[in-house]
């Protein structure tokens, strides 16, 4: 097995149980790898430990078992190498937008002059379209703008890896779409390696190269890894015209609604936690063929039989 840029091996999180009872295992035997420049989303129901995994990657939480190796070094504690975009944006409310970004930049490059720091921070805020709100306090910004500042703050320190914890969860659908597009653009331009938690299936398909599906906790594990077999230059406005889109989407929804429960408790038969099955819905090599719900069949009947026009990228 080739070494990935980020390698997670045998990660587990257990909480001590009540007296005399067994420990509560949230997840165990988590193995996965992320390559440089890859965008990986993780989907699963609440309580499966997604956020804990992200916090372990960020160095904010400690796993009960297992190791995380990034770029050949084991992760120990938080680091500027891993930028985090928090769920609740976590901006410092007494600082202006610019100062919030500068706060991290100053820490990343302590030798820089105030002017350098300001220029660098301004550049990243302009990148997320906040060039005109540099001197506003977070309370004067809308939810979407706040999250943009959070994204700018994370990108501005030029981390080797970006960790996003449901960054758009609290936003309305329209704002979410806009920021997804922006994030997509920035990630494509910077080739940033990203690990992101989301509850939103469409968001995952739009943004990710690979989607990890987590089974329900306790004893949650990575049930399978779904490859998004659509070209990288996809956009929100055209993605749903691709027949692959619905095959992947149905596969994901089916997992979340039906199959995620099957993995609870004892491991599903034949499931290898070290090498979770890689699935490419609708394309060769995929064992599962998910029947499309009846009400969708009529909608996409004309596309359904047409072979996927896209060449999936080489993998596994």
């Amino acid at each position, binding site marked *: 097995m080739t070494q990935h840029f980020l390698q997670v091996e045998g990660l587990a999180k257990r909480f001590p149980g009540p007296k005399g009872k067994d420990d509560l295992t949230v997840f165990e035997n988590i193995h996965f790898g992320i390559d440089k420049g890859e965008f990986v989303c993780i989907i699963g129901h609440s309580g499966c430990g997604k956020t804990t995994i992200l916090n372990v990657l*960020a160095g904010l939480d400690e796993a009960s078992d297992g190791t995380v190796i990034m770029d050949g070094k084991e992760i120990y504690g*938080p*680091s*500027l190498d891993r930028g985090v975009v928090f769920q609740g944006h*976590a901006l410092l*409310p007494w600082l202006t937008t610019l100062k919030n970004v500068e*706060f*991290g930049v100053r820490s990343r490059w302590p030798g820089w002059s105030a002017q350098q720091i300001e220029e660098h921070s301004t550049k990243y805020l302009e990148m997320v379209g906040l060039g005109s709100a540099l001197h506003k306090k977070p309370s004067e910004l809308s939810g979407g703008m706040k999250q943009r500042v959070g994204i700018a703050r994370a990108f501005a320190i030029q981390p080797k890896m970006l960790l996003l914890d449901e960054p758009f969860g609290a936003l309305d659908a329209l704002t979410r779409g806009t920021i997804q597009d922006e994030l997509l653009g920035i990630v494509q331009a910077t080739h940033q390696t990203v690990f992101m938690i989301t509850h939103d299936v469409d968001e995952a398909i739009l943004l990710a190269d690979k989607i990890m599906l987590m089974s329900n906790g306790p004893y949650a594990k990575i049930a399978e890894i779904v490859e998004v077999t659509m070209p990288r230059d996809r956009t929100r406005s055209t993605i749903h015209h691709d027949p692959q889109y619905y095959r992947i989407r149905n596969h994901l929804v089916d997992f979340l609604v039906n199959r995620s429960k099957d993995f609870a408790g004892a491991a599903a038969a034949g499931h290898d936690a070290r090498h979770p099955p890689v699935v490419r819905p609708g394309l060769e090599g995929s064992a599962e063929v998910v029947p499309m719900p009846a009400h969708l069949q009529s909608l996409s009947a004309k596309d359904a039989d047409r072979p996927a026009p896209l060449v999936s990228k080489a993998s596994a």
Partner: protein
Amino acid sequence: MNAKRPWLAPLLSLVFFAVFVGLWHLGTKQTVGEVIVDPEYAALIGAAAATGGQSAMPGPVDVAVKLWEHISDPFYDRGTNDKGIGIQLGHSIARVLVGFGLAALVAIPLGFVIGMSPLVYKALDPFIQVLKPISPLAWMPLALYTIKDSGISAIFVIFICSLWPMLINTAFGVAAVRKDWLNVARTLEVSRLRTAFQVILPAAAPTIMTGMRISVGIAWLVIVAAEMLVGGTGIGYFVWNEWNNLSIANIISAILFIGLIGMVLDNTLARLGRAVTYKE
């Protein structure tokens, strides 16, 4: 309250004040009788007593005259027991500020440590719980005995009474800093010292300022009593001295000034508090 008539509330205040002064005036009106005692004795015991009046309670006019005397010449100094009210208030304010300042120097860093470390919090909590409810004046004899200086003892009493609200509020504010903000600092590898000054301090500042505001209020309450005990100078001593002189008009004037200074102190701290408050 009433956006269309902003003058209504002040007008009502004036009416209340007028009613109060009117009742006061009626209540203290002296029936002027003839002098029934020896003129020399009358001079000694005061006009009111000499004419058979029931009390030495001054009316609003007497107090207004006294107040004007104090305002027009606040800083005279004619010996130990006859100093202008400005000088007396100055002494009290200085003691409060010194005692309060020293308390802030101790309480805020200590509160920081308590707020950041659950261990230190648990270790110190029993002491704080026992020491906090002690009336600051109960410390006075101990302070006088150990310090052997009445002025410094008064400052010590102010110190000890201002300590607790600041200590507790700082610890609370620091402990309640949002975990997210601390995590931001951690993931950005911000040093502990920078985190303390640039994240925890501004985050806890509104709570700390509230503690300071409570402290300065208590300090101003306590200084009057403390100065009554230690004597010498200060507005508390002035009030006690005028009680011995049975100059009720002076006492009422002093009470008014105490209230006004207390209001100024409170407003100043409230303003500082607003300056560090942030909106989330």
